[in-house]
């Protein structure tokens, strides 16, 4: 493969640059939510509160999730980042994974955003422990699924 000329579009496609830009936007969103209404931008916690919350505690969750899915979803259709749009994996694997993610984030009170983006930003010891644990568990799982013969779906 020859060298790729650096153009505007290849700069845009550089994953570290779009990753950093996206990360700054996500962090700014978390700051905006804490500054305005005093809430932590943890997606699993926000989702979990929709069903069980008191009526006065529900509207902001729906507003947040609406903004996230509408703007994120529309952007995803147009932004030239790398989504293979119709990725397909085995349904059984996706169902099992989804169940574990829902169960684990509820039990552990947070996910990548609540413990990661927000918890680490608060220098929370619990969140640091959670982040180290779920990253290690995720890496171990990928190690088994991709590199131990007989496990890959």
């Amino acid at each position, binding site marked *: 493969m020859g060298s790729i000329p650096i153009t505007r579009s290849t700069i845009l496609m550089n994953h570290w640059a779009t990753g950093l830009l996206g990360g700054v936007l996500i962090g700014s969103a978390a700051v905006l939510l804490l500054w305005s209404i005093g809430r932590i931008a943890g997606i699993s916690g926000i989702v979990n509160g929709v069903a069980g919350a008191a009526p006065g505690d529900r509207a902001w969750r729906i507003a947040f999730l609406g903004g996230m899915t509408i703007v994120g979803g529309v952007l995803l259709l147009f932004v030239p980042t790398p989504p293979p749009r119709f990725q397909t994996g085995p349904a059984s694997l996706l169902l099992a994974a989804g169940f574990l993610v829902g169960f684990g984030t509820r039990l552990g009170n947070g996910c990548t955003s609540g413990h990661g983006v927000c918890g680490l930003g608060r220098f929370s010891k*619990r969140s640091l422990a959670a982040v180290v644990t779920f990253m290690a568990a995720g890496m171990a799982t990928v190690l088994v699924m991709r590199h131990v013969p007989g496990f890959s779906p």
Partner: protein
Amino acid sequence: MKFALSAAFASGALFGAGLAISGMTNRFVVLGFLDVFGAFDPTLLFVMGGAVAVTAIAFRRVLKRPAPACGGGFHVPTADALDTRLIAGAAIFGIGWGLAGFCPGPVLVGAAAGLRDAWIFVPAMLAGSFVAGRLHQ
């Protein structure tokens, strides 16, 4: 009330834009980050680094204010001790994350964009959360 809801919507919009632009809705980018012994993809490190850099600087200033801009109080976790529930939950979440490469934020944005895998994952995720909620009542 109106300002509070607009702020929540704007925050969600920023959050969703960040997830879409960063590539985190592509589960194979996430799996690449977790594949430290294979085709490692550092993108997630830059996303998390950028986000935590902002929150680490700004949260401290925000929390020094007497109250949020829309009134009320700050709803910030106060617990500090580690417990098995936290670690077990994080470990179970991590296994599911490593199986598919989806976590709650990106998969919801992916579902909104019509990703087939996200549509399979989200109902199972809600079911898992429901079951865990029931067990811990």
